[in-house]
């Protein structure tokens, strides 16, 4: 992870979630195409795996369909350390695997970097997810971060405060 990513992570979305399963099992749910096909994807949109290459630089390309609507998604994997760490950049995609804008908003980032850390205790596994837009610069992140003391709230809280600050 380079410096920019480190700084960006300071103003990112962080989600922690505990699962009632051992670390290996939880990690494998991300590491196998058959597993992803069972649980990944927008709720109610079963996915079809188009391509799956689980290694750094490899691509997971999938199609999600419901009632005639079709959307594609794509991961490009970064660091992978089996059972402990998984990084990927996610985006909406077209049928050819190219990056496209989110269908629902032109303000949604084109690509989002995701870092998942897996930790097991007493047979339960905690995933800590850190996510932030790839196209946001360090300056921009610092701008957001500078407006609030509590970065864990992410942009939403930050910008509410920013607005208050600006309107002074």
């Amino acid at each position, binding site marked *: 992870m380079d410096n920019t990513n480190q700084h960006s992570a300071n103003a990112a979305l962080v989600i922690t979630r505990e699962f009632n399963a051992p670390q290996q099992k939880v990690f494998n749910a991300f590491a196998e195409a058959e597993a992803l096909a069972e649980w990944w994807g927008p*709720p109610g949109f079963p996915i079809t795996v188009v391509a799956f290459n689980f290694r750094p630089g490899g691509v997971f390309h999938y199609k999600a369909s419901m009632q005639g609507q079709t959307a594609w998604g794509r991961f490009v994997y970064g660091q992978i350390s089996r059972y402990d760490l998984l990084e990927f950049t996610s985006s909406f995609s077209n049928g050819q695997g190219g990056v496209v804008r989110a269908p629902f908003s032109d303000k949604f980032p084109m690509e989002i970097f995701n870092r998942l850390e897996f930790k097991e205790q007493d047979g339960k596994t905690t995933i800590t997810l850190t996510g932030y837009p790839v196209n946001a610069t360090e*300056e921009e992140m610092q701008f957001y971060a500078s407006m609030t003391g509590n970065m864990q709230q992410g942009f939403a809280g930050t*910008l509410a405060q920013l*607005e208050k600050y*600006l*309107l002074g």
Partner: protein
Amino acid sequence: MIARRDVFQAIADPTRRGIIQAVAQQSLNLNAIADKFDMSRQAVSLHVKILQECGLVVITQQGRERYCEAKLSQLKEVSNWVDQYRQFWNDQFNSLDRYLDKLH
């Protein structure tokens, strides 16, 4: 049609962030902005144009002067991605939870 500029791109520049802050306090004409930031009017025009293209500021003509006013609702839209993305991951994790339960 000119592609709308990305808000992220627009606020990546420190001068443009300064301009947004300044005009959020009060509407300013381009000369006033140029003075405040010690820049040429030409340079200010370019920054303002970028901010205008992504909807962060609007320009209104008042007499002979063009005034620049902040529109902060665009910033809120940018912030919404976090809420959307948090919801997305919560859904994914719920689904993963059900999948793991089935494996037992």
